[in-house]
Structure formats: structure tokens, C-alpha cells
């Protein structure tokens, strides 16, 4: 069972955007998809050690700010080189306007 950690309020993230969330020494990225859903992934790119929070969300893709590699943030799948390794994803639930991320 994951441990649910509050990451932010739903209106902390604009639609089609993301924010960085740091917890317990790790960094996560929390996404607000254009369809209104929320998602969470590891906060750093798998190509190099770069925070994704400065990247660009387009639909269900996050583009890394350093070399424009892309991931599908719903599945973590690497979609465009130079990223080759998938991004780790985490479960998310929304309750009473709060976004929670499930961590083991």
C-alpha cells in the first residue's frame, strides 16, 4: 500500500502545466493534464540530472528543458530522444481540492 503524501492544492497547478514537489530528499513532478486529471512522476529527467519542472507540458507530454526529450507523463514512457529510459510514475489521488502522491 502506498503512503499518501499531500503534494499541493489542485489550483496550485495551472491546466497543462506542472510543478516541482520535494519530499524526503527526493524530487517529484506533479502534472495537471488538459483533461483535468493529475499525474506524478520522478522530478528529474532520465537523460541527465535536470529538473523537469522548467519544462513544457503539451497535452500528455512533458518536454525536458535541457535537450527537448519528451515523456508521456501518464505512463512515463520515453517518447523522443535523447531520452531513452522511461520516467518513474507514481499514483495520484485528489481529495477535497488536494493532490496526494502515493509513495512506497
Amino acid at each position, binding site marked *: 500500500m502506498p503512503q499518501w503524501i499531500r503534494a499541493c492544492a489542485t489550483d496550485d497547478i495551472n491546466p497543462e502545466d506542472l510543478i516541482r514537489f520535494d519530499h524526503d530528499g527526493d524530487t517529484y513532478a506533479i502534472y495537471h493534464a488538459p483533461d483535468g486529471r493529475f499525474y506524478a512522476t520522478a522530478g528529474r529527467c532520465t537523460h541527465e540530472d535536470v529538473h523537469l519542472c*522548467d519544462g513544457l507540458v503539451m497535452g500528455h507530454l512533458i518536454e525536458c528543458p535541457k535537450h527537448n526529450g519528451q515523456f508521456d507523463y501518464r505512463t512515463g514512457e520515453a517518447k523522443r530522444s535523447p531520452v531513452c529510459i522511461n520516467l518513474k510514475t507514481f499514483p495520484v489521488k485528489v481529495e477535497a481540492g488536494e493532490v496526494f502522491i502515493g509513495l512506497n
Partner: protein
Amino acid sequence: MTAAPFPVGQRDYSLVGPDSRRAVEIGLASAEWYHSDVPRAVMKDLMKRTDGPAIRDTVLWFALLIGGAWGGIYFWGTWACVPFLLVYSVIYGSSCDSRWHECGHGTAFRTPWMNDVIYQIASFMVMRNPVTWRWSHARHHTDTYIVGRDAEIAWMRPPKTLTNFLALFDVIGATRSLFILARNATGRLTPDEKDFVPESEWGKLVLAARIHMAIYAATVAVALATWSWLPLMLVGLPRIYGSWHMVMCGHLQHAGLAENVLDHRLNTRTVYMNPISRYIYWNMNYHIEHHMFPMVPYHALPRLHEVIKADLPPPNLSILDGYREVFASLRRQKTDPEYFFRKTLPPSAKPYREEFHTLNIARSGT
């Protein structure tokens, strides 16, 4: 002036030598770079992708290519072919570089396949292996002008003026590119290529080289069959006789500026240019802006420039102004390879990140 990041000594620009190891050891490799502050909402707007500007520019690009080729063929053998081939060659041999670059970043078009198609065409025109260069350019952005890490350092120190002057007509560069493609087509990669291209991509790299070489072989065969230079004037040779604009703009990007720093304001140059050059070069004259924020498409770079210019060194006012600075700096570097041109920041700017300038770490073997 110019405290040097390392003591004077011979540089090793290879990606597997002592400078490479040292860059990793002291934290210069894959490091965090300085960025000007831009509010997130403004940056999101600047990063926004759209197909419109690149479709417009690409329709014009193909029109110029087709029109130039038509005139070159129709008037071949008379002086009237010259202006057509001049236009054709610059569009082929110079603007291929900026199209390769922007579509390689995936920012020119919003639609991915459009970026991919133009990237492949432009890679062929510029005689670059589309796989190798995607990765070498990623490294150039990670470690811009870090000695031993960046595979795209054009002016190595001490500078060889004659070699780089000859590069204006890119005989050397194009020939070298062709040899690299030929070597790759036989399945061979250098240690440098193996260093920055992941093994999973090596097969694609070899395949791309074989396709490029097959097109060149077919072109030579047609030239021999028709006993005419014309096929080569249209495919391959424009990379030499039309590359002067690419080389002219390319040398302005970093020549004479700092190496081994983590602030693009110290190692990269923004130059104001005329609209024709900006079309050919797809606004890459805003080069500090591009390196700081590679997510911003070429058509939004002038807007980005306005947003952050108070934090940047003053841009060069023209191509000529840029070259005055480049040549003055290169002249100094011939006798003092540690010298680089350090521009004064406006009072509104944050100070340079220059902790590595004051590092005094001995080069191994010196």
C-alpha cells in the same frame, strides 16, 4: 580580462582524454548553468509551439530550392544560371544548418513528423549523420565549450586562422563530413562517437550513413552518365559553394569567448543581423538566448531577447561588429591561449558565474 580557468597548457579537445576526465572531476561536466529569471507564465508563452511560422518559412524554403534548381538547370551552360545557383546553394548549403538545428531540437514545428522530415532532409544537405549529430548537439548543450566534453568546439586554442578561414568555403569541413559518413557506412565508429551516442543507436547511425552515401553514389553515377557537373552542382557541391553564410554565422556563436564556464553569457554571443540572414539562420543570432532556453522556438527568440536583455551583455550590433570582436580575440589567443573576450554586463544584470575562472586545478601531465 580574463583569469584563466586552468593553468596554461596544451588543451586536449578529444572526448576521452585528460581534459574530459578533469571536467568531470571538478564538476564542469553536466553541471547546472546560469539562467536569467523569467516568470513561468512568460516562459510558457515563449515556449508555446505552433506550426504556422515554420510552415510559412518552409514553403518559401522549398520554393527557393525548386526555383533555384530550375533556373540552374534551365540556364546551365550560360551565365544566367549563376544567380539561380547562388540562391540555391545558400539555401541548400547554409540554411540547411539552421533547419537541421531547429528541427533537431523539435521546436520549429508543433507537429513532430514535420520536425522529423525537415531534420532528415537538412541533415542530408549539411552532410551530417542525423543520429550522431542529434547526440553530439545534446552534448553541446549540456557542456557548451567545456574542453574535453563538447564535440562542437569550432575554434580550438590556440586558433588556426588559416584552417578556419578556409572553412569559409567549407572544403575541409564538407570533405571531412563525407569521410565520416563513408566510415560510418562501413559500420565503423570512433571512440568519440561511441562516447556520446548510446549503443542502442549505433545501428540507426550506420543505416543513415549508408542512405546518404547511396544518394551521393547515385548522383555521381548520373553525373558520369550525362558527363556533366550539373548533378553535382545540385546535390553535394552546394554544401561547399553555398556554405559561406552558415560558416559566417556559425563562427560568431562562440569564437573568442570563454571555455570551461557555466554561464552562457561568457561563452556565447548574440549578434543583431539583417532580416535575410535571420531567415537563413532562423534567428540563431540570438544565441545566448537559445542556449539558456533551448525550449523556446526560433520564431520566439526575438521576444525572449527583449525579456532578458537587461541581464545579458550588450549584443553585437552587426555581423561586422561581431567579427571585429572575434578577430581581435583570436589574435590575442594565438600568443595567449588562455585569453578570452569578457564583455561588460549592464548594471541591471546579475554578475557572471565565474567560480571556475578562479579555480587553479593543475592539468594532469602539465
